[in-house]
């Protein structure tokens, strides 16, 4: 007789338990492929321990999403009468059981359509209108995963899983859909900007593997403080936090800020993303991945790395030079990093300096990268001790002051990087106005 429940030991969350039906999904070909996709692309070139994969992250998100769901909806007395009235129809034993399952599966499957090497240059490597979330949705809707979902009794509707798994913000870019308030709440449990299971897991997991302490906070305290409440702004149901857990939320937002600045946007890691993109553009047909999920499921990091190895071992290979940049660690060096004081004096400084650098050193010797600014100043609702609901920005001076994450980098080929580093300071001085231009132009 086969086991009803299975468990695996996860380094971040301890034992992750799943049943026979979920095991079918975990063992499916699209899910197993995620074992071969690095969670943090080539970050292992900077942090050697960061070799973990999307598979373990997916298990972690399933586990974390379940804990949040149970905290919110398996303890019905925690809900206020007004909240309960709104969602009572979804909280019968049968409906709650169904939605709990959907949330677990959304956590498990949310990354199933990831490209090789995760996020690295996804926008440039997929046809217009596609992102990995859309491919994940197609895999959930049309692959063997859909068959497994429908085989369950009662069947799980793949579209329900898609609605909860697909970050509504990313979805709006390619397939806008209006979710019901209930589904919006569930979507927030998995994908939410502040308390989403995806974020909670990746911060903890990535920092653990990278061996840095920036990403740590207390997830149990955070989850125990989560609550469903009524948004005083418009009267809609929303995910919020009890005041007692506010310091853990502060820790999470600071963790995110530091993980972004120290790990995800480490300048050398970003240089490797660029080199990886350039290699893939040369290696892939027409320079892009196919958006057909069946084609993408045939590719993982392994195939890309094998191609790269082939190219570096043959100095006549058309992609030899591109492979050298990555595998021989001849990566571009940082010659300029945007600072806010420069941007405030000349908002276009990064592009202007990049143009001058390419003019001087050649377009093939210079590269740039930018992200943001993206604020970590998260505005969410907090239930205070007397039962009032207030903005997190009012309640927490820390949350109101977490700086936005922004990077702007210019890189140079190692052949010219030393010269370029000497050239940058003087050029920046020439580009920046001596006195603030705005005073001269003030009307």
């Amino acid at each position, binding site marked *: 007789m086969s086991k009803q429940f299975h468990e695996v030991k996860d380094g971040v969350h301890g034992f992750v338990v799943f049943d026979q039906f979920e095991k079918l999904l975990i063992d499916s070909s699209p899910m197993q492929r995620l074992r071969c996709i690095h969670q943090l692309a080539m970050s292992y070139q900077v942090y050697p321990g960061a070799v973990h994969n999307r598979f373990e992250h997916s298990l972690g998100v399933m586990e974390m999403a379940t804990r949040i769901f149970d905290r919110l909806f398996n303890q019905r007395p925690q809900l206020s009468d007004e909240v309960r009235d*709104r969602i009572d129809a979804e909280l019968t034993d049968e409906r709650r059981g169904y939605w709990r399952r959907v949330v677990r599966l959304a956590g498990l499957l949310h990354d199933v359509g990831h490209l090789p090497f995760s996020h690295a240059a996804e926008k440039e490597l997929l046809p217009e209108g596609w992102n990995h979330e859309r491919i994940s949705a197609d895999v959930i809707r049309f692959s063997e995963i859909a068959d497994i979902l429908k085989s369950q009794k009662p069947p799980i509707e793949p579209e329900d899983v898609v609605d909860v798994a697909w970050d*509504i*913000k990313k979805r*709006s*870019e390619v397939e*806008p859909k*209006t979710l*019901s*308030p209930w589904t*919006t709440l569930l979507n927030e449990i998995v994908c939410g900007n502040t308390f989403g299971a995806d974020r909670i897991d990746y911060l903890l997991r990535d920092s653990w593997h990278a061996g840095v302490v920036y990403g740590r906070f207390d997830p149990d305290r955070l989850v125990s403080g989560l609550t469903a409440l009524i948004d*005083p*702004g*418009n*009267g*809609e*149901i*929303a995910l919020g936090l009890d005041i007692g857990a506010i310091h853990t939320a502060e820790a999470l937002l600071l963790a995110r800020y530091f993980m972004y600045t120290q790990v995800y946007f480490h300048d050398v890691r970003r240089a490797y993303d660029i080199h990886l993109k350039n290699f893939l553009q040369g290696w892939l047909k027409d320079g892009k991945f196919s958006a057909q999920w069946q084609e993408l499921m045939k590719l993982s990091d392994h195939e890309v790395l094998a191609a790269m190895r082939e190219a570096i071992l043959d100095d006549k290979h058309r992609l030899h030079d591109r492979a050298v940049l990555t595998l021989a660690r001849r990566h571009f060096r940082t010659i300029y990093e945007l600072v*806010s004081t420069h*941007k*405030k004096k000349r*908002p*276009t400084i990064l*592009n202007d300096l990049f143009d001058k650098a390419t003019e001087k050193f050649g377009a093939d010797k210079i590269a740039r990268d930018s992200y*943001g*600014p*993206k*604020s970590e*100043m998260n*505005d969410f609702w907090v239930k205070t001790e007397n039962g009032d609901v*207030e*903005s997190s*920005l*009012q309640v927490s001076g820390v949350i*109101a002051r977490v700086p*936005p994450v*922004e990077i702007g980098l210019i890189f140079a080929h190692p052949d010219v990087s030393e010269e370029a580093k000497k050239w940058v300071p003087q050029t920046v001085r020439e580009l920046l106005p001596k006195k603030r*231009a*705005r005073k001269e*132009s*003030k*009307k």
Partner: protein
Amino acid sequence: MNFKKQVYILAVVESLQANGSWTGKTHVNKALSLLRDYAKVDVPFNFVLYKHGPYSFDIEAELEQMQSYGALTVDPDAQGFGVTLQTGEMADFVHENAELPAATVKAIENVCSFVGSRNVAELERLATASWIRTREGISEPKQVAKRLNRLKPHVSLEEAEQAYSEISTWLTS
């Protein structure tokens, strides 16, 4: 850095301030959504129906850019509702790099006068009703109210009908 987008945001913030609004992010979002519906201006932002009605993630991104170099300042609202936006010391930089046609500026002024200092709940109802009418092509009042109530169950049918009546009158004024 997209000054063609930022100049719309700046014009809306300036006009909302002139109309005595506390100028939250919701006001800016709804004003730009209504600008499209009201004056048929090809506003350079994508909108989706989101938690508080029509919403643009592009606007959020540009607001962050503008804040980063001082074209706007963003401060927590003293009343505890989100943040308030104000023009910053580098606002002129936007005007130096992009400008709007006079007709668009006039339309923005009309929209911001309508949006003014309405609260988030009102703006959600009005902008969503406008969305249903202009984007979904539903104009029969009862049908619009039903649709709005289905999208936003916390908005009663009566409130939805009132919102549609008000927005229809304004859109055709």
